[in-house]
């Protein structure tokens, strides 16, 4: 799923991460916290918190994250699949004081697994731990559920800026691992990656890989 970047030697990866969660769980604040946190708030793109990008360097590997926010409202869910196709990771946010938002997360997990299989790295995030007194979703229940579906569970507070950096760092590492495993599975097909281009890659049998394969090289536009 990763692509060889332009630079010689070190690898660079482009990952797409979708952000899912009901209206008031605070996913927008969460991602804003992450992207604006250090140094300056120039990270805010012209699309504000809907679409954000972040460049990372993890163990010498360059990572470009594209974070796609999705609408929580039910009425926009008809086209959900076009949002999360080709995603490498998904962050599913619920509000620990809102049982209902946790149920919604479960629905999304089912859908994502159905559409994308096990390729996608799932993170289930209980947000607003600053409001722990009003907690309505038990920690054990949430963590147990996450484990049962092959997802990782995290606790965050966008307000206090807690757990967010860890969440994204961890996710990136997992996505890199998945990507590397994927490369190995393809059997060092480095030659084909260099010359093959879009037309060749749009074969129906692996649609979820097509985009990311061309990703890194085309960020110029």
């Amino acid at each position, binding site marked *: 799923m990763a692509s060889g970047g*332009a630079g010689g030697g070190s690898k660079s990866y*482009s990952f*797409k991460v979708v*952000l899912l969660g009901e*209206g008031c769980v605070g*996913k*927008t*604040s969460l*991602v*804003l916290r992450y992207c*604006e946190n250090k140094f300056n*708030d120039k990270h*805010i*793109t*012209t*699309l*504000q*918190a*809907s*679409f954000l*990008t972040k460049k990372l360097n993890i163990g010498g590997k360059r990572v470009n994250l*594209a974070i*796609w*926010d*999705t*609408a*929580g*409202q039910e*009425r*926009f869910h*008809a*086209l959900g699949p*076009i*949002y999360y196709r*080709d995603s490498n990771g998904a962050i599913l946010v619920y509000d620990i004081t809102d049982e209902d938002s946790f149920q919604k997360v479960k629905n999304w997990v089912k859908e994502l697994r159905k559409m994308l299989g096990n390729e996608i790295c799932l993170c289930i995030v209980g947000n607003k731990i600053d409001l722990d007194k009003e907690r309505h979703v038990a920690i054990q229940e949430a963590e147990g559920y996450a484990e049962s579906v092959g997802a990782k569970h995290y606790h965050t507070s966008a307000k206090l800026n807690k757990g967010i950096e860890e969440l994204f760092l961890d996710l990136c590492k997992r996505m890199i691992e998945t990507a590397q495993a994927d490369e190995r599975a393809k059997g060092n097909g480095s030659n084909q990656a260099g010359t093959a*281009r*879009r*037309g*060749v*890659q*749009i074969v129906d049998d692996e649609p979820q890989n*097509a*985009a*990311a*394969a*061309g*990703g890194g*090289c*085309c*960020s*110029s*536009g």
Partner: protein
Amino acid sequence: MVGSAMAAPLQNAMKLANVAIQLDTQNRHKDAYCEYLKSINYISQALLDEAVTQDGTEIVTADAQKMLKLAEQCLERAKSTATKLGKLEEKPAALEQHRPTCKPGHRRVLSDGGQATSPFLPPEIFEKMQIADTQNTKKELTPMEEASRLNQKLKATYEARLARLNPSQAMQKTSLTLSLQRQMMENLIIAKARQDALQRKVEERRLRLQEEANRRFSSSACLTSEEQEQRIFYTSILEYDQDHDWPRNWKSKLKKNPDDLSLVVGLLSCILSCPEHPVMKLLKKLQYRIYNKLYSIVSRANCSHNLVQKSPAHVASIGKQHSMKASHSIHCMQSLQENNQMNNEKMKHSVSVTSLPLIEDYNANTDSRVQQQTQHMNNQETSTLSAVDKDGSFEDLEQFLPQFQGQPESLPNLSSQIPGEFLVLSLENDNLPQQLKDIVKDIHNSIDRLLSLCILSFETLNNAAAKDQCLAILEEAFFTPIWTLLLALFRKVYINRELAFERSMALYKNMKPCDIGVKSKLFPSESSPPSGCYPYEAAVIELKQISKFCCPQKKLECIVKALRLICECAEEYRNSNEPSTSHTSAAIGADDLLPILSYVALKSNFPQLVSECAALEEFIHEGYLIGEEGYCLTSMQSAIAFVESLHKGGAPK
């Protein structure tokens, strides 16, 4: 003294004309046209100044005459440039025609007058335009052509001399004639020999280059057809490069600054202005092939054409007929008729005879007219018809439409009266989505081939950034002439979605942002906006620009700009509503963006947006998919789907 005074204006005039000619050879017709006119203007002013100050006898100096001559030439060239400009303008004109030609009366005109029906240029003309573009550049003369020119000159001098001879000098006349004949013959023989030698050389060189190409591609033992093609292209590139200097110059420039993308742009525009370059030849060829295919599909499928742009009431009346089996045949017959007009086949007579009364009925809404039509149908169909006809509500039609579209076997009984080819046409009509898919695939393949040929010609382009730049420019050149036709096909395929979108717009056009779920702080309160404006108008205007562009990338930029404008507007509204909130804590997320975007889509009053986005989805670059462009397109699609679903049920919130 006069001469020296005139020298400057003459030189200036020649400079001006030179600029114009250069522009002309670069195919920049409009600029050239203006420059020609400027030269004429300059000359006439200079001469006028001269004439006013000088005495009568001194006005017409040698230089003045030269200038007059120059002005004459400029005028000639301006005229020919103007015709070229006129031809180019036909393309946008085709776009404009799109709507008017769909008026109800249009079909009738067709059946009587036999005028060309499609708003699109037939492929023959498309190809001619391609060639016309090609001919704009000067060609080198072959030896034979050169000789014939020389001979013409000789003949002219000969005639001039003859005219000066006295009738009595018959002897001299004969000798002149003989010497002319001898000279002309000699010229031709020399030219022929030169031509043959040249041809031999060219042939030898071709063989040599072919070997070179073979060596390059010899690594694989058995060649696929693709490799074979590459080899042929490579030969033609080598050939071209030997004949021309500019590729070599560009290659060395690129080598010096391999990371300079502006060089790539320069090179590509240079290639695009050289019609003889193999890349351009291939582009024209592939473009024509796709245009041709599209044209035949679209003109065959023209039956559903009218559905797109009608008001709901009119759509209902046409949709009604469309849902009837017989009307299906009318459309097809018509397209057949178009074919006949083009191909001059013999069937024309019989078909137009049978179709005439039916076409008359095409626009009829009244029961009596429809009854006439039923004469052509059997009883079973009559019952279907009257059921539809009596209960003419739109909902019923929607049920009928897919039913009949999906059943090729339910062909009209009229088929017994019409030739077999017609059956094939209607069958094919039913499978437009598949045809569209094939076309999309063809286009992707074509662009891939062009890109790889480009890289084959200039190996320095073989890096990611340069490739992208290359691709963008090639795409623009490739899509621009075919886009309107391509979009027409998309619109035929997505007709039902466009109709749904249109219905929602008709129902909810006066909706306020809050009705669609936009938070109240994200639009101005009732009192504040000046009358005539509505919230997010800037984004709506930007979004509608999408139809002005003819290549996917530019269209995509439109959507991105519209979304950015939404965010800007939203921020502005919020700041005026809640001046105290901090900048970041309330930034626009998808939860806010989508309702606003849906509102903007609804306000656009532009059902074509459905098809435009569907087309963009097919042609967006892979690399853009996960970036901002991909996000914007996905959000747009999502908002459109929501708007489409609005009319089906209940509260929009």
